[in-house]
């Protein structure tokens, strides 16, 4: 069951690949099929099994604050 997900801003991501090295579930890959406007292959979440926990570890290491992290939480708690 998907607990979380991330969004990578292609305006901010510089393709440094650091996020790919820290995700405990190994869910981040580089999008080698295209370049960002700055000429980098951006990172992207590849989570076919919906394993992302929204742990935000990737965000902790991202030097460019390119990663936004979401997590499903009980509605009550979120309120």
């Amino acid at each position: 069951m998907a607990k979380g997900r991330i969004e990578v801003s292609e305006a901010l991501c510089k393709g440094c690949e650091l996020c790919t090295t820290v995700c405990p579930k190994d869910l981040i890959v580089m999008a080698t099929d295209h370049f960002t406007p700055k000429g980098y292959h951006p990172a992207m979440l590849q989570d076919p099994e919906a394993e992302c926990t929204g742990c935000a570890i990737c965000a902790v290491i991202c030097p460019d604050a390119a990663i936004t992290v979401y997590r499903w939480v009980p509605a009550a708690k979120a309120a």
Partner: protein
Amino acid sequence: MQTEIVISGFGGQGALFAGQLLAFAGMDSGKFVTWIPSYGPEMRGGTAHCTVTISDEEIGSPVVRHPKAAIVMNLPSLDKYEALVQPQGVLVVNASLVDRSPTRSNLNWVMVHGNEVAEELGDKRMANVVLLGALLGLEPVLTLDQLADALRNHIPARRRSLLDANLKALHEGAALAARDRVLA
């Protein structure tokens, strides 16, 4: 005869080195040459840009407002230099990072997917050489052989293993220019 070529892109795209190759090739062919860089507002990821002048006589100013030719490796460079290149001049556009073609009708231009071509040949950092090949295809200020010699002589030691790939990149660029060019 004097030819000025501007090469412009993001830092790290090899614009400066491409210009040096041109200048070395010019010098080795007995011409007067100058190479002059300029850096944009940012250190890395910012703009890097150089002007190469190749001339039959002593060179006065090493900078010009209206170059004969330009290689533009990203969109800001296209935006800037499309307007500045001399009428009937040459514009080589790196289509990998630029999604529009030149609009001026009095230019000879070509769109080349430098990054992809280079990546296929083994290293995307050779995009600059692909584009250089394309330039010579359109503006034969020097021959491909002269440039190939310059590559052989001046490629940095740590990239020497890529020499053959670079030579290929050069010719591939020229070939693409021959195929895709749009003449004024």
